[in-house]
């Protein structure tokens, strides 16, 4: 990692590392105890370790000459490693909390490990840890290849990746200590949120500075999506997390939003975290890695334009479909429902464009598990967006809301679409980054593929059944005119589905573990055919 940095870059890195250690010390000194102090100590230790590593490297050989004529892939390699570390953490916790719903007595009797504290560890671990690292790592790769330019500088990508992972680590350890804003998918407390803003601005600036150096006249469609992901997530994150800390020396804060305003802001954020984190960013990934792997150009340029602007414009309206039949004004619910249905058009345009791109390459889909991952991802994307539009229709939502159907829907999107496209992208990218044509264990990809597909189907089908059963039991009236089932009876009816869901999740986790081992083996293996599949970098201006 550090060997790839020049001496002035190592010095800048050293200053940043010392700055991080000082920030951590300030947090520790101000808070003295509690989550903020622990987080300060974490930052301080990380800063000190980085400072020592960088200071030591000042006396080691300089970065190889001529490195500016090459793409800078070291940060991407680190991002991929973190992607898989978080995948294992987030998915393991997911399987564990799923098991607790079937077997609640297994909950250890100490506060840090009860369901309510572990659940956000799962969601943050998989969405932000696994998904976010995959997005940042692949975006830096795609940005350079489609611009035919090296990253604008070599320190910022490290600041972004290390800073982002520090945010994730602060978030999940905070939940274990009971520090949470309780806003779903935005549980991290105020100082972690501010830190993420700093990291995100650096990421955005790096993206624009690298685009400005591009040697291609057009900005490729994958970058439109990555840009929308970066920009809109910043907007959502800042507005939803505006909070007043009780004290600058403590972790607790209160959101400035209250009641229905808070509900609307929360689900404007919540659903657009789905839209711009879990959809736009990953469509960027799809638009680059699917055509590269299939060796076919994107089927329709016009359809890419229509679907991109459709997604950017329509999605932002749909959050209020989370609040049907609540105290939120009726007209806002109706707007959310209407736009959710309209959203099907750009969503299916994207899915269709991806699948049509495979025309002429179907034999590769049959033979190549990597491309099959991406094909299945596009199919699940189409299915989940259809389901999403359907569930947003008010009467359907009256049955599905608050039930496990929602959980099933989310996992058909996150397991079937997000995780599958990540795995497809990783299996395309990792051999290239390692100077090889294939992964170290090509057969393991097949195992991973079938474990993933089986796990996802078991999970999603179990949760569909669970959710519809719950919804129907809650609303069924008996012959005497009273409700036919107690709430508890609906809980008891869930047991077989909760068991099945745990099995499905465990299969998916097993696949991810195989992936992590395979990636590790590939990254450590000797290069076979260096850079054989990479796009050439055009001559660069001096830095």
């Amino acid at each position, binding site marked *: 990692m550090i060997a790839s940095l020049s001496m002035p870059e190592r010095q800048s890195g050293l200053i940043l590392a010392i700055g991080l250690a000082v920030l951590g010390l300030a947090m520790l000194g101000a808070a003295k105890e509690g989550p903020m102090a622990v987080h300060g100590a974490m930052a301080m230790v990380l800063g000190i370790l980085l400072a020592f590593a960088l200071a030591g490297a000042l006396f080691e050989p300089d970065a190889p000459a001529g490195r500016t004529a090459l793409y800078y892939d070291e940060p991407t390699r680190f991002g991929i490693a973190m992607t898989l570390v978080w995948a294992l953490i987030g998915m393991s916790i997911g399987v564990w909390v799923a098991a607790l719903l079937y077997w609640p007595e297994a909950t250890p009797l100490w506060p840090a490990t*009860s*369901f309510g504290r572990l659940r956000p560890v799962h969601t943050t671990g998989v969405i932000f840890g696994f998904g976010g690292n995959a997005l940042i790592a692949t975006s830096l790769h795609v940005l350079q290849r489609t611009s035919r330019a090296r990253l604008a500088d070599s320190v910022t990508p490290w600041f972004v990746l290390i800073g982002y992972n520090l945010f994730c680590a602060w978030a999940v350890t905070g939940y274990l200590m009971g520090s949470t804003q309780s806003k779903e998918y935005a549980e991290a407390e105020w100082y972690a949120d501010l830190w993420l803003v700093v990291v995100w601005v650096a990421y955005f600036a790096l993206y624009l500075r690298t685009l400005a150096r591009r040697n291609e006249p057009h900005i490729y469609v994958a970058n*439109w999506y990555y840009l929308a992901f970066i920009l809109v997530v910043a907007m959502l994150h800042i507005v939803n997390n505006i909070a007043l800390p009780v004290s600058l020396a403590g972790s607790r804060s209160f959101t400035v*939003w209250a009641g229905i305003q808070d509900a609307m802001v929360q689900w404007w954020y919540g659903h657009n975290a789905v839209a711009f984190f879990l959809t736009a960013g990953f469509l960027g990934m799809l638009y680059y890695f699917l055509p590269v792997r299939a060796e076919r150009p994107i089927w329709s340029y016009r359809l890419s334009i229509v679907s991109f602007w459709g997604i950017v414009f329509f*999605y932002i309206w749909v959050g209020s479909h989370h609040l049907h039949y609540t105290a939120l004004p009726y007209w806002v619910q109706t707007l959310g429902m209407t736009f959710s249905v309209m959203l099907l058009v750009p969503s299916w345009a994207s899915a269709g464009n991806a699948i049509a791109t495979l025309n002429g390459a179907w034999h590769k889909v049959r033979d190549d598990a990597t491309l099959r991952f991406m094909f299945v991802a596009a199919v699940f994307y189409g299915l989940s967006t259809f389901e999403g539009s359907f569930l947003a229709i008010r009467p359907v939502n009256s049955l599905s809301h608050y039930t496990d159907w929602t959980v099933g829907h989310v996992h058909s999107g996150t397991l079937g679409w997000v995780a599958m496209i990540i795995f497809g992208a990783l299996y395309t990218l990792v051999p290239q980054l390692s100077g090889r044509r294939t992964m170290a264990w090509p057969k393991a990809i097949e195992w991973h593929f079938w474990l993933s597909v089986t796990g996802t189907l078991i999970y999603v089908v179990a949760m569909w059944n669970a959710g519809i059963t719950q919804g129907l039991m*809650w609303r069924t009236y008996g012959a005497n005119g009273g409700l036919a089932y107690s709430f508890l009876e609906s809980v008891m009816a869930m047991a077989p589905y909760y068991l099945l869901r745990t099995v499905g999740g465990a299969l998916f986790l097993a696949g991810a573990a195989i992936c992590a081992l395979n990636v590790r083996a590939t990254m450590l293996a000797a290069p076979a055919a260096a850079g054989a599949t990479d796009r050439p970098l055009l001559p660069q201006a001096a830095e």
Partner: protein
Amino acid sequence: MLRLHYNLERVSMGLVAAIIVAASIGGLVEIAPLFTIDETLEAPADLRPHTPLELAGREIYIREGCYACHSQMVRTLADEIDRYGPYSLAAESAYDHPMLWGSKRTGPDLARIGEKYSDAWHAAHLVNPRAVVPASIMPAYPWLAATPLETSSLSAQMATLARLGVPYSRERIANAAQDALAQARPDSAGATGVAERYGARVAVRPFGGDPTRLTEMDAVVAYLQSLGRLTTAAHDPH
């Protein structure tokens, strides 16, 4: 149009500006009008904010992630009204920073749970849910009854909420720690102060059942017993 886009995608700042505009409209249209709702929505005259003890309980409810499995929003559907009680009004969460409407009912909705069960039931249920409801899948929270309630930060928390518009007067803020203790000690001298500052309808009882010390159990049970009872407006058919 295609020509326009052909040129737009050559200018990175143009793309950035277009994305910001396209992604702002929906949010502005849906969220901005909600801030004028105070003008159309009349807050019930009897609406009160949480007492310090209930607020401390709410903080524990948030800390333990209870909202992940329990909603606090009865929808305007016949079966929900029959099962839980009157549908939730916007005004009922007007002082909630953040709202805890929730999104999932692994357990039942709690918007109307207040005073449906006894304090002793709640305390026993929180210590071990399966002792009271054998088929329950809720985690046990035995440490609530064993952990003394930290009341020293309540004043600062209420002062912060007051800055955000929650009606915590200086007097309420100054007496926060004392009121928290007194609400669980009906025989103490401070008990009348709680009623004076928060209204005669506020329950003053030994919620957690341990008369020797104030625990997190007192706070959580007081909070649960207050749910749906901050105003009677929802029960009033107009």
